């Protein structure tokens, strides 16, 4: 018995040494914490969301049942209309310029591929246990009066009932700052920061 343990141990050690040659990195992934980046330059403001699948649809395995696929498609459709996620003051005169909504699926053999096509997840194989997926959405606005954005509200928390908090990184010419937004107070105060 003892020897078996030694053999197993040494086997483990050698595989570790062999595999130490390659660089391995794993991104952070925390359920209940979505990330949001906001950048302001001139009259443009961009919002970039990266939200764990669990926070949106309640699961992160590759959707295979019709029910799960429907949930994902429904969620992507919800992201298509940004007003489900956040709202800007109307007097800021912001017009949506471009947007990109995608489901990023990562598994053990993650190669950082983006699966922008909504239906592609059907073809994925079985990695159900190790899967982490992430909803990615980016919205870019051109604003007539960008200084009027004194507050951003997040219907996001009401739209997705599984959602946790949003960690916000914010940058403009005034400098960078961060916010933590939660459902009980779903807004950030950007007065004097743009």
């Amino acid at each position, binding site marked *: 018995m003892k020897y078996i343990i030694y053999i197993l141990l040494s086997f483990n050690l050698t595989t570790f040494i062999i595999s130490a040659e390659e660089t391995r990195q794993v991104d952070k992934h925390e359920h209940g914490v979505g990330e949001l980046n906001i950048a*302001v330059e001139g009259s443009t403001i*961009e919002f*970039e969301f990266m939200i764990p699948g669990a926070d949106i649809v309640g699961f992160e395995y590759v959707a295979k049942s019709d029910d799960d696929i429907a949930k994902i498609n429904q969620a992507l459709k919800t992201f298509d209309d940004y007003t489900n996620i956040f709202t800007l003051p109307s007097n800021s005169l912001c017009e949506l310029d471009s947007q990109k909504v995608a489901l990023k699926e990562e598994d053990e053999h993650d190669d950082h591929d983006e699966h922008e096509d909504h239906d592609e997840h059907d073809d994925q194989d079985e990695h159900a246990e190790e899967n982490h997926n992430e909803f990615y959405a980016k919205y870019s606005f051109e604003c007539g009066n960008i200084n009027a954005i004194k507050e951003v509200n997040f219907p996001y928390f009401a739209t997705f009932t599984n959602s946790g908090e949003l960690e916000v990184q*914010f940058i403009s010419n005034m400098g*960078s*700052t*961060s916010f933590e937004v939660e459902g009980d107070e779903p807004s950030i105060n950007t007065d004097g920061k743009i």
Partner: protein
Amino acid sequence: MLLKLTFNSLYARLLTVAMTVFAISLSLMLYMSVEKLRTSAYTSFTDTISQTDLIVGARTSSVQLLLYSVFRIGNATNNITWESYEDVINKKEVAWSVPISLGDSHKGFRVMGTNSEFFKRYKFRGGQSIELEQGNNLDDLYDVIIGAGVAEKLNYSVGTPLIVSHGLQSFSDHDDQPFKISGILAKTGTPVDNTVIVSLEAIEAIHVDWSTGAKIPGQITPVEEIRQMDLSPKNITAALIGVNSKLQIFQLQRWINEYPEESLSSILPGVALQELWRIVGVVENLLLGISVTVIFTTLIGMTAIIFSSLNERRREMAIWRAMGASPKVVIGLLMLEALIISVMSIIVSTVMLFLTLYVLQPWIDNTYGILVNIETLAVKDIYIFMLFILSASLVSLIPAIRAYWFSINDGMTIKI
């Protein structure tokens, strides 16, 4: 008339009243100094770095990277290789960059290796640049520029020779390669004041005869020979980076954080600072909570003192009644008393606060790098004062009402 009476009555009990005023003033001062330090620390920190979009360093927590690279406090982070640094700055998003190399010291002051970009790009307090007060830039390999604080404390001037120590202790000096002060920076109120600045090449030069953290015994390469060597830096501690457009910043940040060849991290200074403040905020709230509690305790103390004096003052009140004062006037008198005590306490505490801050300001600045603003009272302080006066008057109602009953029952003859 009433006011004069109250003043005279208070004066008659000068010692007790003075002690009460002193106790309340101390507690108010405690509250105000906590608040003052809190806001000063925040502005000092946020004013230290401005217009830098990203700080790049080895993979570590954002707070640690910020504290070490900008404030030069806390634990050292790993270094990053020059190759990785070049890969980062060759990205099209990068507009400018300032490499920083830390690790050595001079008499307890950090030595920072950097290049001429630092003087152009490093901005503080809403975009101010650092300026040379005396002397010149780093022209020679062995030139150093020192911050205003270093010059002041060590009494250095342009031309003074200077030896850099290896690491933070002066156990081993780079005494074979002496430097010369070429310039002194104007005071900035940031950690730059306490920094000795040399070129990145000079950092390489002083470590020519060093291998794995120790001087190679017996090996001293002559300075002339070192000057001929290739001294391009092999690694740096961190880099300050500016981007062309703020819209590209997160893309660049992600690229750096996922850089496969080396574990790097890039942080937005304001975000890291906010993160730090969320941690510090807990302690701050605790301190504020304690000082508010202390204010309440002294308020209760004040009431207790007025209360306990009531019995002794039943004669006094009887005299007031005899002079024609109605029981309501008695209430007014006691409330006025509390009011006078609290206003006096506020005046005394403010004077004490400013005197203390005036005395301690240089020490706080030197030790913690926090410049305490002693010019004005915050608007918040005024609110707190008003709230304090209001609650003092309210609390004093309790003994006042009791005195009212006493005076109704006693009339002019005291029944004990």
